[in-house]
């Protein structure tokens, strides 16, 4: 196997949160905690977890839209964290992002066609006329017409705007695309269209995608491998088929069992489904973050964070009680 496109090592982001009045001390909040994984060339890596588990923060840390507190981001062997602000800006021609809110992520005062060609302009690529030609071409790739070029975002539907968001990221031929809940705000039918588009794009552009979503069925459909995050920690990383047919980590199993089912006979899976709420991220247990909701929890789980061990080829689990 060739070298991974992006190697994330011990990535950590601590927010200092002030609770109550301004004279109290700040408390550290570990939004992303010692996360390590690789994104391989051409693969779609899904990231799942409940809200507040650090999924979106993770995407922003990789692009350094947020500054990581600790860790390495080796993009083609080069640590992004050592780049200056201007170098990082240029490096973004290789890594683009698609956002959750399709309408909110487009400048309301700019024609959508311009929003698309702007990406090239930021990086000084081509002349005005060439950029225009390229924008028209990419519009047809994402399933829009040339006549959409002059529209303003409020004149388009959410699904169309998300296509624009994808076109804007793709026009510069990035190697890595980060999709942060990119289909979550769309209707199910539009979601299906965008996912189909995504499959076409994968084949055409040979691009690596970090696909962040809380929707397990969507992740199941598009991903090659999946990372399961819980309160900023990696619980399990596994190939998608293996994960959905035989998850090992008790949290992943709980997550999968909590999916709504249309088959009434399968509806009651009480022993595995997740109970209770997430603990406050400000007062995490000393050991495994999942210990408060885990059926397998024992003393060691309260004391010590389990190591990330490779239990099977390509299959990493962080749990004391899984072989």
């Amino acid at each position, binding site marked *: 196997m060739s070298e991974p496109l992006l190697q994330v090592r011990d990535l950590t982001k601590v927010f200092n949160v002030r609770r109550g009045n301004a004279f109290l001390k700040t408390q550290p909040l570990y939004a992303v905690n010692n996360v390590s994984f690789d994104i391989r060339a051409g693969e779609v890596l899904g990231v799942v977890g409940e809200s507040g588990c650090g999924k979106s923060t993770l995407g922003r840390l990789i*692009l350094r*839209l947020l500054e990581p507190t600790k860790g390495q981001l080796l993009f083609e062997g080069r640590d992004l964290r050592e780049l200056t602000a201007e170098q990082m*800006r*240029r490096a*973004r*021609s290789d890594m*683009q*992002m698609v*956002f*959750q*809110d399709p309408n*909110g*992520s*487009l*400048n*309301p*005062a*700019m*024609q959508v066609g311009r929003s698309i060609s*702007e*990406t090239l*302009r*930021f*990086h000084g690529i081509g002349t005005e*006329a060439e950029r*225009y*030609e390229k924008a*028209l071409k990419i519009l047809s790739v994402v399933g829009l*017409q*040339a*006549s959409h*070029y*002059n529209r*303003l975002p*409020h004149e388009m539907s959410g699904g169309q705007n998300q296509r624009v*968001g994808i076109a*804007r*990221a793709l026009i*510069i031929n990035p190697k890595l695309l980060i999709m942060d809940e990119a289909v979550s705000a769309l209707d199910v039918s539009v979601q299906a269209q965008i996912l189909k588009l995504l499959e076409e794009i994968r084949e055409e552009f040979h691009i690596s995608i970090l696909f962040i979503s809380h929707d397990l069925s969507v992740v199941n459909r598009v991903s090659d491998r999946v990372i399961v995050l819980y309160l900023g920690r990696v619980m399990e990383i596994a190939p998608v088929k293996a994960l959905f047919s035989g998850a090992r980590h008790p949290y992943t199993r709980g997550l999968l069992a909590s999916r709504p089912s249309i088959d009434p006979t399968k509806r009651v899976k009480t022993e595995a489904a997740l109970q209770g709420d997430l603990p406050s991220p400000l007062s995490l247990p000393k050991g495994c973050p999942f210990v408060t909701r885990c059926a397998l929890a024992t003393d060691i789980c309260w004391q010590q964070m389990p190591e990330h061990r490779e239990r099977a080829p390509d299959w990493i689990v962080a749990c004391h009680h899984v072989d």
Partner: protein
Amino acid sequence: MTAATNPAPLRPKSALSETMARLLGDKPLVRLLICLAVLVLVAVLAPVISPHDPLKAVADLSNMPIGSDGLLLGSDNQARDLLARTIYGTRISLVVAIVPTVAATTLSVAIGLLAGYAGGRVDAALMAVLDVFFAFPIVLLAIAVAGVMGPGLLTIMVSIFVVLLPYITRVARTSTMQVTQRTYVEAARSAGAPAGAILVRYVLPNMIGPVLVYATTLIGLMIVVASGLSFLGLGVQPPTADWGAMVAEGSGVLRGSPHVTFVPGAMIVLTALLFNLIGDRLRDLFDPRKGS
């Protein structure tokens, strides 16, 4: 070369031109703008439409009533034509209110953009400096400026400029901070946009609406303020025609000939009202809740 191959030729439809089209399609606003245009025309064409020289005594008597022979609005206390002086006074009033407000708005938008976008220490430093300006009462400031430069038009304009700066900057900064948190600004950053492009093409067009509304409303207020400063003798000096100075001159004969005071006074009120109404209408039109 592109015209033949492009299925959709670049039609010059920017958001700016669309906004203009929307504003000009609003009948109440257009009516108000026509009133403003008339006022501006009166100011520009003053030498043409004025029946007499505003500085010379043309009447037989001073303080002649409205509708006197040959003098539509009568004469003032020095037997000058009140209509001529009111027409010429339009020039001063408009210039003295509009020029410093436009200048202050321009600088305020620049400072507000910088402070609101940069945040942190830059923001804190800029705002601390402007807070000092906040503390100046306008009359006191005008007296101080007049002490240096002598009373006159420029004194009033400098005073208004300095006084308005912190107010408009606050609005510009707040508006900038709101826009800066929108996803499309983060999206531009993630796409690799340099800071200059983000500020000019993403933040500026989206933060300017509330600032323009506020500044328009301020013009109305500044007409009153400028008149007040002229009334106190800090503005243009006699015999130049200025609404505020005319009110001051007429105040001595208020009991016997109230029209000498009321005519310029009414112009001040109506002009201020006009700008306030334009500002209010703009606010309604820029309000996103009323649809785009």
